[in-house]
């Protein structure tokens, strides 16, 4: 009988969290062997795309760790990490995969015990969730693929990197925007881009109608029309044919990766 052992990837920043993980070792805190660690100079290097890609490829859990807010070796890198992981979480929620599979935590160089605790807890939580079903669930796989695509999207990248400055330093007019309204914009943009990516996936091989797409997307048809209109104006989606009274759309494949 072999118990499910979740496969976990943890990103550690060089200056705080990697040192904290080392300290856990120096202090001989024992914790489960599931984690495979990847060192980066700063947690800010870890893009939403990287973590989503890992989950899409079957990792049971992904964790990103960095210095506590205010302690970043690169001044403010971890604030960006926080906003970017927030975006990754939003996308993850849209895919239907448990969002607990992605974690962000702060571990300082002196928190060896905390690190061991966080990993132990994560392993426990993932055992409770069971294996990442992505390889058995084609629908989920395509949604995760859509999330990865959305995370690479220009608009989301711009927003997730500009967010902090808009709130704390001010915009081009010197006005500060309140966090709530920025988050509102982010929320909407994330959902739109995710759905757009999903539509492109669904229409990649087979043309689809608005009704068919709306069913897949789980939203009212009038919302789907908005996405279709937007994708068509971006020249990513084309009318394939009209089936009776129902137009069907197909993604425009431009080649390349």
């Amino acid at each position, binding site marked *: 009988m072999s118990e499910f052992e979740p496969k976990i*990837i943890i990103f550690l920043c060089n200056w705080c969290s990697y040192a904290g993980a080392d*300290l856990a070792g120096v202090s001989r805190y024992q914790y489960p062997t599931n984690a495979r660690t990847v060192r980066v*100079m700063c947690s800010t290097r870890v893009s939403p795309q990287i973590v989503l890609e890992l989950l899409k490829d079957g990792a049971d859990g992904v964790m990103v760790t960095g210095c506590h807010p205010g302690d970043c*070796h690169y001044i403010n890198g971890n604030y*960006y990490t926080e906003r970017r992981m927030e975006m990754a979480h939003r996308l993850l929620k849209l895919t239907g995969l448990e969002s607990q599979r992605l974690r962000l935590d702060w571990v300082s160089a002196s*928190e060896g015990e905390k690190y061991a605790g966080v990993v132990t807890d994560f392993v426990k939580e993932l055992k409770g969730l069971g294996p990442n079903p992505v390889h058995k669930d084609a629908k989920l796989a395509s949604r995760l693929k859509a999330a990865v695509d959305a995370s690479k999207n220009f608009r989301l*990248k711009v927003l997730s990197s500009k967010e902090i400055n808009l709130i704390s330093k001010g915009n081009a007019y010197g006005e500060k925007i309140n966090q709530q309204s920025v988050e509102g914009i982010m929320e909407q943009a994330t959902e739109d881009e995710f759905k757009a990516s999903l539509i492109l996936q669904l229409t990649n091989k087979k043309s689809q109608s608005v009704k068919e797409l709306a069913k897949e997307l789980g939203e009212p048809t009038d919302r789907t029309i908005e996405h279709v209109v937007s994708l068509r104006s971006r020249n990513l989606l084309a009318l394939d044919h009209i089936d009776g009274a129902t137009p069907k759309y197909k993604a425009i494949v431009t080649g390349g990766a």
Partner: protein
Amino acid sequence: MADKVGAVMVVGAGISGVQTALDLADSGFKVYLVEKKASIGGTMAQLDKTFPTNDCSMCIMAPKLVAVGRHQNVELITGAEVELIQGLPGDFTVTLKKNTLRVNEEKCTGCGECAISCPVETLDEYNQGMKKRKAIFVAYPQAVPLVFSIDKETCIGCGICAQECIAKAVEYERKDQALEVQVGAVILSPGFEEFDARLKKEYGYGEFKNVVTSIEFERMLSATGPFFGTVMRPSDGDIPRKVAFIQCVGSRDEKVGNPYCSSVCCMYAIKEAIIAGEHSPGLKPSIFFMDVRAFGKEFEDYRARAENEYGVKMYRGSRVASVEEDPETKNLSLRYSIGDETNTEEFDLVVLSVGMRPAEDGERLSKKLGFKLNKYGFCETDVYSPLNTSRPGIFVSGSFAAPKDIPTTVAEASGAVAKAAALISEARNTQVTVKEFVPEIDVVGQEPRIGVFVCHCGINIGGTVNVPSVVEYAKTLQGVVYAGENIFSCSSDTQEKVKEKIKEHSLNRVVVASCTPRTHEPLFQNTIREAGLNPYLFEMANIRDQCSWIHMHEPEKATKKSKDLVRMAVAKARLLEPLKKSKLGVLHSAVVIGGGLAGMTAALDIADQGYPVHLIEKEKYLGGNLIKIHHKEGDRKPKDFMNELVGKVRDSKNITVHLDSEVKEVGGFVGNFKVKTPDGEIDAGAIIVATGANEYKPSEYLYGQDKRVVTQLELEQQLDEKTLKAKQVVMIQCVGSRNEKTPYCSRICCSNAVKNAIDIKKASPTTGVYILHKDIRTYGFREDLYREAGDLGVSFLRFPEGTMPTIENKAGQLEVTAFDTVLKEDVMIRPDLLVLSAGITPNEGNEELAKMLKVPLSKDKFFLEAHMKLRPVDFATEGIFLAGAAHWPKFIDETIAQASGAATRAITIICKDFLETEGIIAAVNEMVCNGCGVCEPVCEYKAITIVKDPSNPDKLKAMVNEGLCKGCGTCVAACPSAAMEQKGFKDQQMYAIIDAALQEGK
């Protein structure tokens, strides 16, 4: 005269000595860093967090410790004491006694097996005796050097550790050694001792379990401390609800012989109170202060947050008479008084905020080395030469000269370097070594030939992980042409073996699976470089700290994990590329903006070391605010001192003064700045901002309307001209400070008021002097002035936080009314002179200058340094530095020390012929980049600019300044077009490593 020696000895390796050593070594001098204990780090290494940023102390300090331990121009001499200094400034012979560690430092790998098996225990000093350690030990896990030592007092000589030590490093018979070292100058930074709380018998320390000192409490708060960060009562392990901090334990106390203020306790108590509340929600801290001395940058804000957001209760103007223990509950009852009222309150835990005493070693050093101590036993210094001891050629920094906080210490630590370096500047670069390397082998285009070295680390890895099977597995991985095992990969014979294997198998990538890259990567990188490989063709798999040590009871899983980690490292290694550190030329000159005390001091310090300086002053004269001050400070008038300084600046052949001038534009970057002024463009390697600040011009209290209302500066003029006639003088503190508009404390006004009050009393003992205040913040030895003023009959009246006294002109008579917190009623005084202690306001030009320099301002509009604790004179933008009141209001001695510090930091750049860029930096794929500009603002180092594409002027693209980029990678994650990449952490390398992680291993 004998030749000068291009080496300096630094005595004491706390944060002060470490900073001094790094700056000296980076300025072309050899450094002998002498430390009495077996490892460096001093008191800061014991702290949990630091105020006012609540940074983790070890996180910010450890990189400096590692850097100094690794610096090729720094020789650490630990466990050693200075016995004698002979010779003349510039050419000293220092005799040292190096106490034996009973462990061979060359052989010890720091693995710690010896301590695990050692059968005897004693109290652990690092944890203030609240935990045990073994007889063979290292002070703390991140210690530098990571070498164990035997404490002979505790050791029973059983011989177990020698048996366990695979490196054969334990040498019981190892003897003390006498050493002689030639140096040109000496810098003393032996630090301080904490006050022995037992001497305050009335507080019951040592008798009552639940009375602890602040430094013990610091360890209690620390995640690496005895209680793992949970605050517990030593008596029963319960989490205390009510915690009292008693201030001034061994400070401001003539009875125990420490009449001075220790300067830091108010702030650390506030910090400990905040952190304790964060660690244990529901914990209610109270602090018993005489005065709340929150006088530093952002301190007042921190104090306000503690009270308003964290609910820290502050008893101002209070004195605690005694602490009694309830024998049943072990709770403690405090008897305290505020004014004439006495109260009692019960607490679960009492923290004594112990003050700072001069270094234990101070007296011995003073006698042996021949420099003077002041009346309190600290090193004697002068207001106008705060970094010099009484013996020429011996300098001082840090808390050995007076109690002070970390940022002031760090600024001084750099400052002392300027003084030592000026003495021996002609011997720069004579004692340092520059390593010569064989030419690099060109590996571009070669198939990867990877060598994998798996380490046993004695039994640290090999005892858990099946190392031979990891080696066999490594051999099966694509690209691996050699795999082998080592007992200790870090030993010097293994380095030779690695080099041989590189040659034998024509390896072009190396993977070492052993401990952590944080400490060992540079060693291995150096080794492969010696074998002709670019140091970035190296990757580590951490199978000890992050595998064998944490999975000690799961050998099979740990072995599988080790294989996975090796597979991941090899996957990345296949894609590694040689990285070049480019060299940027450096101009050997500096620009100093501002010709006041700070600017002139910095300019002279740089000029005295032989580098040209351009000093830019907006007025038509040099000297700033201080040249107008006649009133005596120390034993002379600032005006006289300033005139002398102006003379020196004028005489210096290295200084070009630009009067009636200002900075119009700043271009370029570190090593190559272009500063535009109305006189033309100046090229310089570094810039120092020393633009000062101003006295606040009051709009309140009838100032400007009634001649009887003056500022302290104007009072000083009257005192100086002996025109003061008033018989009743009232001074009001915090006019233009600590109010809603300017919430900060201006630091210097309390001491100035008290000093002027003394002068009034001395000139006319019958004149009544009242000082109306919220707190009297005469920190450090300035407390002497406060006491003297009280003795002379100056009356002090405390009014509550959030209020101000009022003034009325009643039929020609001034009437000042304030609420007295002691009498608890309004008190009215009729002064014939009202003196306003006007605060300090930042320069209005700061914002414009900050924009030109691309450096930030604090919310109070003073310039904001790179890090408030450990980089007090640096800006985040490299090559630009900060000194004087432009940073924060400060006294003459503090300004001088800080200005010298800024000069040193600038010299660490301009003394070099070139700067090496980081290897791991961002790079733009110009084909893909469309110049959208998202990356530009996310870069904290201003390393990215959006420029016109030279080949296509219609197109924009991002450009990375390699000199400024620190390689964090935030722009890479931000780039919407995947045009940005981070060398060494490229997308394909990142994906290779994570794909390998997801593969099913064996």
